[in-house]
């Protein structure tokens, strides 16, 4: 999972814009309502590089809301449910894959 921060803008399939919320750092997704949500289900889905660029530009402009926005791959299943597109995004959505010590 080469860090997406080091990747060029290339999208194939469905994508979302994700970042970390500024005041507490939690994972958030850019919504169609021009806000941020902690729930991937509420993320705005983009399917073309132009759509992705536009959504990213809007997210970058909201620097007080969230930091380090980037485009992340997702899969949308038959029922319309949005799933993380790779292990990194899965871990960001679900948390660590290990038991915490407490």
């Amino acid at each position, binding site marked *: *999972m*080469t*860090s997406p921060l080091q990747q060029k803008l290339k999208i194939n399939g469905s994508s979302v814009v994700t970042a970390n919320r*500024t005041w507490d*750092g939690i994972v958030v997704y850019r919504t169609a309502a021009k806000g941020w949500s902690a729930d991937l289900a509420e993320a705005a889905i983009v399917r073309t590089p132009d759509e992705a660029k536009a959504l990213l530009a809007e997210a970058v402009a909201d620097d007080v809301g969230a930091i380090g926005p980037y485009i992340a791959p997702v899969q949308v299943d038959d029922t319309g449910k949005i799933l993380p597109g790779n292990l990194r995004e899965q871990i960001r959505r679900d948390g*660590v894959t290990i038991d*915490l010590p407490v």
Partner: protein
Amino acid sequence: MYAYDEIDRTLVNERVSEFRDQVKRRLSGELTEDEFKMLRLQNGVYLQLHAYMFRVAIPYGTLASNQLRQLAHVARKYDRGYGHFTTRQNIQFNWIKLSDLPDALADLAEVGIHAMQTSGNNMRNVTSDQWAGVAPGEIEDPRIWSELIRQHTTLHPEFSFLPRKFKIAITASDHDRAAIKVHDIGLRLIKNEKGETGFEVLVGGGLGRTPFIGKTIKHFVHGRDLLSYIEAILRVYNQYGRRDNIYKARIKILVHELGIEKFSREVEEEWQQIRHSSLQIDDEVIEDIRSRFIYPSYEKLPHMPDELRQAAADPDFEAWRKNSVAAHKNPGYAIVTISLKPIGAPPGDATAEQMDALADLADKYSFGEIRVGHEQNLALPHVAKRDLPALWKALDKLGLATPNVNLITDIIACPGLDYCSLANARSIPIAQELTRRFANHELANLIGRLHINISGCINACGHHHVGHIGILGVEKNGEEVYQITIGGRADESAALGNLIGPGVKFHEVADVIEDIVEAYLALRERPDELFVDTVKRLGVEPFKERVYATR
């Protein structure tokens, strides 16, 4: 223990209020992330996958019990009830909110703890032997010199904007526990024929993308010239160091490109110009620092007390003692390593409860002092031997008496893809699985000293290059793949490991390591031939054959 003076305290407090103001301006939008990023990094605040991460310095790995309690308090109040001890004598909190950080910093400042120099392109926290001041045969306490360098370089403009981060480590023992050969500057404290204190200076070590073992640049620099010599190195580095390319900006690359001869000539020239300046250190300065280190008043105690003799009948106690207890310069005392590597748990994590309890045990049994080592374990540096059995029982209750120090389950692992935004692959679950595979203590003991180091990307925070077995996570077609090296070591005979062959998948790693260990057990000449020595004698081939024959 070190007593900070007024200047340090004022500085730390000023930094806290400065940061409080910066955070406020960031949250109101007055500062952009671009403007704020450097400010937060200067205060040890990184961004990870799920949250901010807060890195706190533990200078030369020495902690007082009240400081450990305060770390526990921060873990409990602002984080999720635990902290992670790292390979650089730091502790990290993984879940902290930006809005809480000023309060956390203020709470830590109350006990003289700060996060300066834990990140950014500056002179980092100078690390040292975690057994400094107590190891038998040590020439002199190396922390006095670490402290001298710390004072000189803290916030010194010349050292705050280097081409890249810069790390120094110091040892004063024959056995190098500070890994000086993989630091930008490594210092080995020695005495010359006249009995004067000085240093062998190594330069250009480092891991990461382009690993190098440090080379000796000068065999003896007199103690009084230490600062001017370091300054000369830094000036040459500042002059040539590549700021245009972060991958080439480390001093190791410069030393490699210029060659050690040319590099040392340049340093020598620079040094001759500044050697007799105000950088020359007066004996009083050293004595003043020395006087601030508070050493316990040891009692005269028996080398083999009855309590210890009796406890030796208990095989569980003996198993722990053999691995965790080391000789102290005072024969009635011992150094006790506290394993933060319980079977199946993330290496280096300690809960707030464990930290509090350990602080109490330090008060009761170790003159209130705790040490943090680069192996992600802790130590109690001054335990009377007669107290060992009682201490063991107390540690065992806390889950802190796993008898595996220096054994195959004493694994060093970076946070990897579970936490880190730079990661390619997970590290912690690999470590956990390996500890389960080798959980049997007789087996681990039979294998003997064997260090496994795991990193989740090429930045090498888990020091995989110098692990006896090194595991590096990479990404291939969206999958986690692990490259395995053998034969590395981090001590006075530091060496980089060699790749055994193509990378293996997540679920295969533990099997492969088992194969390597079985091959070693079959190939070693004697039970006390260490894994690394067998690899050195035979090379990679027999291990490679064993691993890939059936894959």
